[in-house]
């Protein structure tokens, strides 16, 4: 993968230190502005995370453990996590039953995210759907990879259930059924570039933030509870929207391979929702009750970022509809 284009001083610093030198990256001051919806900060974080996934063509592989870059990553992560905790801190959770899957369901039921799937189902043009796929590509082309980092960090029943879920995400032994491959097939069928990182320059700060939140949780053992809560909320809010999105894709006449990705998720995520809520999060918190609060934090983060992204996309698309009419 090629390095993306800089979006400001922080990403310029990261890209510059990766391409220009083999020396450890120097320090950089981060301004006081929020990083959550800042394209420059989120791109910098995305690049730093990618060193742990696929890396970049022109970057030496040992830069993954460059102490200067890790220091910057820690600074950005601390800010990002703080902003997320502040944003979702007021989310009403907990009926006091102590049953984390019931609390997760309560949180998910209270979610009033903007109706992106309904728009894609009934109203969206072919271009809107293509735009949606492009924005999602920064996370879906590494679908399930952030959660795999959690496997060695948990044990027992929760570990077995996560492995079971991931095996399905990874195609159940059939490479052509890897969910990230199905998404690449969908991109290609929609006339888009399916290569990893092809649209990093084009996607919004919030699309990067959605992808980065999963890496934030997946790459830190401390946040394993949040990673699993995020997974549960993601799976539990996927099956019904996937059905609507598949119908929208068929309505505008895009090829079957585009809808196929979403059809697969109608069925798979109806399963994964139950596995993630009960067999992963339920058993994880049973084993270690101190993780309960972070499971809920992770779930609330997933819903919060999805809501922000949804509002952004609907606003963008409704503006285009007005211009067109």
């Amino acid at each position: 993968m090629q390095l993306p284009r800089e979006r400001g001083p922080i990403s310029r610093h990261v890209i510059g230190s990766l391409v220009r030198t083999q020396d450890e990256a120097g320090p950089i001051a981060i301004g006081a502005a929020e990083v959550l919806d800042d394209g420059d900060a989120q791109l910098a974080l995305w690049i730093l995370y990618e060193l742990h996934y696929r890396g970049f063509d022109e970057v030496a592989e040992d830069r993954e453990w460059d102490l200067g870059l890790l220091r910057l990553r820690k600074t950005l992560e601390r800010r990002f996590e703080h902003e997320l905790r502040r944003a979702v801190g007021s989310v009403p959770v907990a009926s006091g039953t102590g049953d984390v899957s019931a609390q997760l369901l309560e949180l998910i039921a209270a979610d009033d995210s903007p109706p992106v799937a309904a728009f894609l189902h009934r109203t969206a043009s072919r271009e809107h759907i293509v735009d949606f796929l492009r924005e999602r590509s920064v996370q879906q082309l590494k679908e399930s990879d952030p959660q795999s980092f959690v496997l060695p960090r948990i044990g027992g029943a929760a570990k077995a259930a996560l492995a079971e879920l991931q095996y399905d995400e990874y195609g159940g032994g059939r490479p052509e059924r890897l969910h990230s491959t199905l998404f690449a097939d969908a991109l290609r069928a929609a006339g888009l570039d399916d290569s990893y990182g092809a649209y990093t320059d084009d996607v919004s700060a919030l699309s990067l933030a959605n992808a980065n939140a999963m890496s934030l949780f997946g790459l830190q053992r401390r946040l394993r509870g949040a990673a699993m809560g995020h997974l549960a909320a993601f799976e539990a809010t996927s099956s019904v929207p996937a059905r609507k999105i598949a119908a929208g894709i068929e309505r505008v006449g895009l090829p079957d391979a585009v809808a196929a990705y979403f059809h697969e998720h109608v069925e798979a995520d109806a399963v994964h929702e139950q596995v993630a809520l009960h067999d992963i999060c339920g058993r994880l918190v049973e084993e270690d009750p101190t993780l309960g609060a972070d499971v809920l934090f992770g779930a609330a983060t997933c819903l919060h970022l999805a809501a922000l992204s949804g509002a952004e996309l609907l606003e963008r698309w409704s503006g285009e509809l007005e211009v067109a009419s």
Partner: protein
Amino acid sequence: MTGEVSVRVCPGGPLLVRGAEVVVDDAGERHPVTRPVVAVCACGMSGRKPWCDSTHKAVPAQAR
């Protein structure tokens, strides 16, 4: 594989089935299992029977 099949009832939702190779529906049609665990529709409203497609979420709780 021990040949053991486990079924868990998800309250208000599907049946979670592990270890099955084939699910036979009411009409006798055989549906091969291609996942490590499958969700079988329990509300009767799925558009992809025998598999759950989350339609139960649109059905009032008392009607499930």
